[in-house]
């Protein structure tokens, strides 16, 4: 337990020392929020179902942070630790290397939560964001989405031969997904053809679930989203047992 605490604290420090990861988790989403906020403000827009641009952006950008930490942060860190022999070094100690993975999940989850909180605070203070959902409900949906993406990340991390490939593959999967799922651009603005593609992207279901819970929709209206995300989570846990390698 002492080791897990130390390891988690250590990994948190390492996360914040890595400027790229910290930037995309904590700073970049805020920049997006202020950019679009300065362009459109938070006036109710008919196309967005009467919600303002900020009202729909905060849950959507939260989905963006989830995808970034799960598909970039997690994959790159684990692939790097494996390639450099960091995991190997840990295997010579009495500590299970699972400790470093657990610490990694705790840190990324906390950073993702922090990223969301910063968006909520900025949205509230600067743009008087509306929130009609139940905070616990949103947190539960957020947790499901996050763990589901980390499961996906673990499977991919096992398949990456090097840290360099992890970085490239992570970006190749992440960036199109951000734009096509409604996380980066509101899905109402996407053409019909693209919406068909977005049905195949896991992030679409995160965006739908979080935006729904945000305005107080019932879980019952989002069974498809929950089913897909839970499926990915279970598949991720099962598959990562096969794909994962310590060295």
């Amino acid at each position, binding site marked *: 337990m002492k*080791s897990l605490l*130390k390891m988690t604290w*250590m990994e948190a420090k*390492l996360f914040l020392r890595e400027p790229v990861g910290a930037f995309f988790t904590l700073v970049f989403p805020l920049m997006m929020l202020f950019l679009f906020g300065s362009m459109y403000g938070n006036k109710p827009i008919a196309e967005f179902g009467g919600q303002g641009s900020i009202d729909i952006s905060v849950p959507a950008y939260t989905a963006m942070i989830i995808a970034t930490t799960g598909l970039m942060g997690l994959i790159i860190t684990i692939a790097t*630790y494996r390639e450099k022999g*960091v995991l190997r*070094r840990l295997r*010579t100690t009495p500590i299970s290397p699972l400790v470093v993975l657990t610490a990694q999940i705790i840190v990324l989850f906390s950073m993702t939560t922090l990223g969301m909180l910063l968006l909520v605070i900025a949205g509230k203070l600067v743009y008087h964001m509306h929130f009609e959902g139940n905070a616990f409900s949103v947190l539960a949906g957020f947790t499901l989405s996050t763990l589901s993406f980390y499961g996906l990340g673990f499977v991919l991390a096992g398949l990456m031969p090097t840290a360099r490939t992890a970085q490239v593959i992570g970006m190749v999967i992440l960036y199109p997904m951000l734009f096509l799922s409604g996380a980066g651009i509101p899905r109402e603005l996407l053409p019909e053809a693209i919406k068909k593609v977005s049905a195949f992207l896991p992030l679409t279901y995160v965006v739908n679930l979080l935006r729904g819970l945000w305005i107080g929709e019932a879980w019952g209206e989002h069974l498809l989203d929950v089913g897909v995300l839970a499926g990915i989570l279970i598949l991720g846990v099962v598959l990562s047992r096969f794909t994962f390698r310590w060295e």
Partner: protein
Amino acid sequence: MDTIIQVEGLCKTYGKTVAVNEVSFDVKEGEIFGMVGPNGAGKTTTIECLEGLRKPDHGTVRVLGVDPQRDGQILRTRTGMQLQQSNLPERMKVWEALDLYASFYPKATDWQEMLVQLGLEEKRNTPFSKLSGGQKQRLFIALALLPDPQLIFLDELTTGLDPQARHAIWDLVREVRSKGKTILLTTHFMEEAERLCDRVAILDHGRIVALETPAALIRNLGSEERVVFSVDGSLPPAFENALSGGNRLEIQGERVTIHGKNHRAVPLVSEVVELLTAHSVPFRDLRTEQPTLEDVFLSLTGREMRE
């Protein structure tokens, strides 16, 4: 003295490659035991089987009385391991690494003291990636010493270090041994094995081809000694003819080397000096060269390039 490591008929194959073939040896408490051999001779595979990182195909291995495969956990709390290929996260600072790794062991030694002992005090806030090769290895030794282990594994500790750093590491290893710890190391520097180890096993093609103290290896297997001197001009042919059979002459510019068999009735140097005087050859800088472990190693493992 107690036996710390017992290896009996160890075999390990990767696909069709036989990495380790019927290797047996014992390591006694308090000794520095070295494994040397060309690349691919099976040193690292052997050490990794002892560390519990690899599963042997055949043979029995006992380290500190336990089977590394079955009781790896016991082994990992009581031994220190330095691996050939391992790293710490780039931005982890020296003190953070020690503090973190110390938390893994029930009875860890005081890492603050270790920092001073290993001369890393000034580098305590330096990130891992900014350390020099020698400093990284010193940090790895510090990490290996944290559990206050009975036994320490050092795999190619000084590869890639400059001579100063290498000598500093050697002093450190001797100091660790003087505290009663047993050390098993692999190296491909023969000088390192000769200076540091109490006993050396020479591995080739997955087998132990010789296992003795460095002095005994040289005495028993060093097949030749050499006399080296310089001459102005060239040697008279009469001198070359008078040199008894079995001795080999090598001339490089003004430098002459005479290779002779070891263990002879008249020492090679007397024979050579006598001949030089008899033929009135003016010579300078005459010295004899005893065989080194490197000569023994090359005569046992051959001179062809590996890999």
